[in-house]
């Protein structure tokens, strides 16, 4: 039977007004609105003779069946747990036990009462008809043949499999976890805890997003620690370098505007002319990956003009003279101009303005370090900020990120291996930037086995003794986020069981054997901190978990129950947990003191901001480097196989005619949000954006369907022609479309960035050092 409904079918476009049912026809919802005023309801209630009705699904109602007040709104505190700079504090309005709408918390001066377009769509997510509602088992991975199972049945199946592989291999290294930033609520580290509670397992470690920059800042400053973004308004000169906050950190823009209102100049550096560029006073579009050269050229000019902060570089830093010598011998402004494509005069002008404005700051975006020379480039920018005396200054700083407000107990995460567990013998590094267990692990006889998350496909293919047999995926969508999709498909074919914990039917779920429905932010208790601003928000459970969804820690508890039932002592995870109690257990005296609160309950009144000695990081100029000073020369960096000085490092050699950029869209965070109907209104399909000159050369007209291809794979999509993209670039936003088979990871290989292994366990990925060709399809 074929579909006969034509373009109004559920997979067809809905009208622009959105006033449509799933079938695209105008809804008749108004017809039933007056039910509550119908007199027959009163009559039925009054009858009192209803006890004998033949209902078998409906249950006699007791007063306690409705847990929420029916009259007014109840108001809850929530936090946006996505991998977003802004980590918004949310106020949630609930009526009849249903989230009616959300808004930004007014108490946080950062969130300031507003969310972004994605945040406002949260009710569409919780109540999406598309949500995964029940635990389900797929008979034949990829077959689309799914059966509904009870939670107990699902967990027993998994538990039996884990016991079987433990028996077979003598350890649980055949079980691997892949998890990253899908939900940053602190209790969700209970997923790592679940793994530890089972024994020593395999972990995909590292982080795809920002590790090169993290290491760079650790070499230079001893930690990644940015100023409070709210003090950016005190800057006299702001360079936004490789970030697009007008899309990806909308709440920060008000500080940029405030700085400009007070006379600051705003310079935006991005190979693409972004919304942020459009709002700047100066927009530079350098060659992609030339950032290090540009920063060093500016540094050379500052040096030539004698605008170096002598006091800082002599009293608070080491290695400046060596750096200066390097600049004199190896760097000229003309060289930087040639590398970057930015005219030498402009480089000189901006360098001079930057060095003379006090304070001046650079926002180092994550985009500019997703390169084979990304860590080196961040070090060069750090050096530029440091030599002009802007480190440790209010309104200054080399801003990258911070983890100052993340000092929770990680109660959910820290679990003991069952007695007698064996595992991997060998060196143990950190399992990501949030790994608080790194020190303890180093001392143990056995450890988990670490595989590089940024080479997930290859690592899963290569792992031996034992191979990875079972993969558990949570807070992550490997098929949308891990690199080289075609290779990943091969890697998944090797796995004996894939369990994914999800809210929507992603490509990863399609490649799973078992899917478990997980709660949204409104359905669990947790607490959230930001890696950018300094506010901490409580996340209250606002509604009952819809359908049969469970939180990650409840899933862990249930797995533990089944493990212990089948094999007593095989899992140390508590079997009965309460998500609110577990949220409480994350707090400690340090967190209370930092936030200036006496109890977590205080956060019910609104988010709290860390009480820092200054809005500037490093205000006391005590750096956490081995020397205790800012290190222009880092011997630690050299000992890790890099240059001691922030020297220029060449970029990746092109392997196809055009550079391929796959940055973030405004309407999605990785593969989240893009599948919601409100976002689809704005972004129905992916496009590849290309420059008119390139389009002309290739005979491509606006909206033509084209093929973008490289050795990793290809995608087919329509083209949009725009001057905002440089002539040698192809740009497509990463996203997951529920109705389309589109995946940028078809084209992105797993080439490593230069840094990241030191602090996150694995180097980053050169996401923007990718190349491809394009042709009309």
């Amino acid at each position, binding site marked *: 039977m074929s579909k006969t409904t034509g373009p109004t*079918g559920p997979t067809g476009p809905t009208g622009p007004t959105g006033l449509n049912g799933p079938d695209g026809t105008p809804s008749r919802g108004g017809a039933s609105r007056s039910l509550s005023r119908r007199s027959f*309801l009163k009559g*039925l209630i009054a009858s009192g003779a209803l006890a004998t009705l033949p209902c078998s*699904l*409906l249950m006699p109602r007791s007063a306690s*069946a409705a847990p929420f007040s029916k009259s007014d709104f109840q108001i809850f505190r929530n936090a946006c747990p996505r991998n977003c700079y802004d980590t918004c504090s949310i106020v949630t309005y609930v009526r009849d036990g249903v989230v009616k709408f959300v808004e930004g918390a007014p108490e946080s001066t950062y969130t300031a009462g507003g969310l972004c377009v994605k945040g406002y769509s949260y009710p569409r997510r919780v109540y999406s*008809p598309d949500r995964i509602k029940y635990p389900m088992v797929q008979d034949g991975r990829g077959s689309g043949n799914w059966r509904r199972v009870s939670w107990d049945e699902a967990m027993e199946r998994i538990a039996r499999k884990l016991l079987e592989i433990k028996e077979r291999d003598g350890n649980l290294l055949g079980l691997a976890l892949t998890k990253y930033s899908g939900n940053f609520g602190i209790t969700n580290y209970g997923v790592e805890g679940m793994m530890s509670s089972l024994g020593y397992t395999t972990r995909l470690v590292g982080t795809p997003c920002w590790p090169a920059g993290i290491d760079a800042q650790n070499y230079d400053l001893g930690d990644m620690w940015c100023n409070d973004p709210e003090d950016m308004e005190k800057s006299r000169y702001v360079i936004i370098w490789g970030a697009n906050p007008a899309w990806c950190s909308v709440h920060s823009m008000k500080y940029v505007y405030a700085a400009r209102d007070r006379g600051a100049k705003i310079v935006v550096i991005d190979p693409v002319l972004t919304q942020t560029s459009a709002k700047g006073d100066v927009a530079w579009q350098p060659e992609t990956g030339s950032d290090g050269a540009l920063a060093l050229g500016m540094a050379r000019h500052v040096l030539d003009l004698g605008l170096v902060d002598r006091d800082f570089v002599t009293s608070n830093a080491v290695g400046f003279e060596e750096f200066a010598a390097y600049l004199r011998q190896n760097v000229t402004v003309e060289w930087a101009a040639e590398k970057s494509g930015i005219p030498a005069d402009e480089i000189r002008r901006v360098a001079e303005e930057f060095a003379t404005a006090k304070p001046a700051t650079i926002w180092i975006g994550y985009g500019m370090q997703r390169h084979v020379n990304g860590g080196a480039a961040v070090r060069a920018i750090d050096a530029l900020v440091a030599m002009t005396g802007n480190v440790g200054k209010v309104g200054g700083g080399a801003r990258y990120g911070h983890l100052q407000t993340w000092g929770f107990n990680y109660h959910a995460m820290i679990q003991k291996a069952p007695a007698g567990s064996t595992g991997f013998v060998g060196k143990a590094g950190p399992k990501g930037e949030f790994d608080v267990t790194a020190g303890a692990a180093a001392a143990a006889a056995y450890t988990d086995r670490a595989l590089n998350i940024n080479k997930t496909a290859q690592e899963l293919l290569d792992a031996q003794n034992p191979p990875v047999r079972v993969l558990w995926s949570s807070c992550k969508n490997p098929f949308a986020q891990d690199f080289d999709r075609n290779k990943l498909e091969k890697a998944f074919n090797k796995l004996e069981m894939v369990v994914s914990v999800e809210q929507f039917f992603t490509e990863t779920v399609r490649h799973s054997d078992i899917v478990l429905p997980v709660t949204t932010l409104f359905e669990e208790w947790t607490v959230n901190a930001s890696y950018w601003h300094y506010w901490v928000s409580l996340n209250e459970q606002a509604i009952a978990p819809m359908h049969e969804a469970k939180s990650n820690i409840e899933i862990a508890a249930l797995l533990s129950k089944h493990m212990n039932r089948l094999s007593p002592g095989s899992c140390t995870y508590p079997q009965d947990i309460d998500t609110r109690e577990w949220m409480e257990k994350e707090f400690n005296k340090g967190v209370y003191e930092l936030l200036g609160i006496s109890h977590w309950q205080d956060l019910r009144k609104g988010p709290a901001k860390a009480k820092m000695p200054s809005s500037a990081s490093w205000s006391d100029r005590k750096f956490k480097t081995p020397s205790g000073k800012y290190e222009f020369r880092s011997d630690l960096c050299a000992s890790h196989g890099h240059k001691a000085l922030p020297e220029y490092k060449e970029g990746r050699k092109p392997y196809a005619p055009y550079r391929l950029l796959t940055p973030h869209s405004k309407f999605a965070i990785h593969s989240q949000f893009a599948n919601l109907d409100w976002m689809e209104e704005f972004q129905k399909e992916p496009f590849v954006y290309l420059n008119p000159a390139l389009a002309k050369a290739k005979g491509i007209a606006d909206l033509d369907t084209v093929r973008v291809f490289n050795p990793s794979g290809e995608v087919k999509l329509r083209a949009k022609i725009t001057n905002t993209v440089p002539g040698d670039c192809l740009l497509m936003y990463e996203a997951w479309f529920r109705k389309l088979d589109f995946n940028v990871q078809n084209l992105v290989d797993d080439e490593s960035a230069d840094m990241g292994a030191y602090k996150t366990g694995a180097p980053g990925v050169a996401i923007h050092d990718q190349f491809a060709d394009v042709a009309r399809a």
Partner: protein
Amino acid sequence: MDHISLTPGTPRDACLLRALRDLFSARSARDIRAASLALDACRTRFGCSRAVRGTPPCAPPGADSIDSPGHWRDAEYAFNRLFVGPMAVPAPPYASAWLEREPRLMGESTMDVRNLYHALGYAVPDEGATPDDHLSFELDAALALLTLREAADTLPPSSAPEPFPPALASDAQEAWRWLVAEHMGAWVPRFVQHALAEPDVPPAIARALAMLLCWQEDAAAACAHRHTPSANADTPTPSL
């Protein structure tokens, strides 16, 4: 108040509603098989209401003839693809997905049926977590109202013993009319049409969808008939 004699439609409706309710709340191949067989039994016992009236039958006659485990397993897969998930389903079996300004669950139309259940003294299990307007709950409520209507109808108003209030019969009839004609009428036909338009709908599910639509249309027509003041009392009530 009109006096309505009990028509043979009531047991037919009850039989159908029970089987349809069980089918749409199925969790497994076994549930689907049992509900499908029950639906076939209703048909065998009462005939097709359309065929009885001389109009084309709502579904092809004859039960699902294949009765192997694999057959019902395939029906389960198809059932989940259409109504359950985990993939986005083409025909979400929730009123709210069709009646709200934008498709969603737990909308105002969900609260409408929740209020009705409450008035009947009922609620869905795990209220707040379970959308009240899942088709199977609405069919369950229809079954309840059918029984209530029947009970009220069989008692002459004057002889209604306590605790039956005098208006129960008309309240029950009005609630029934609202639920099956107004509320379900606004979404069930679209739901059925969309599900049937999907490729590879197994016969057992296609039949159930067709019978659901027949039932809903006939029940709504019967309500309209009762509401028409000029209706001749001698005209037989359309068979349900």
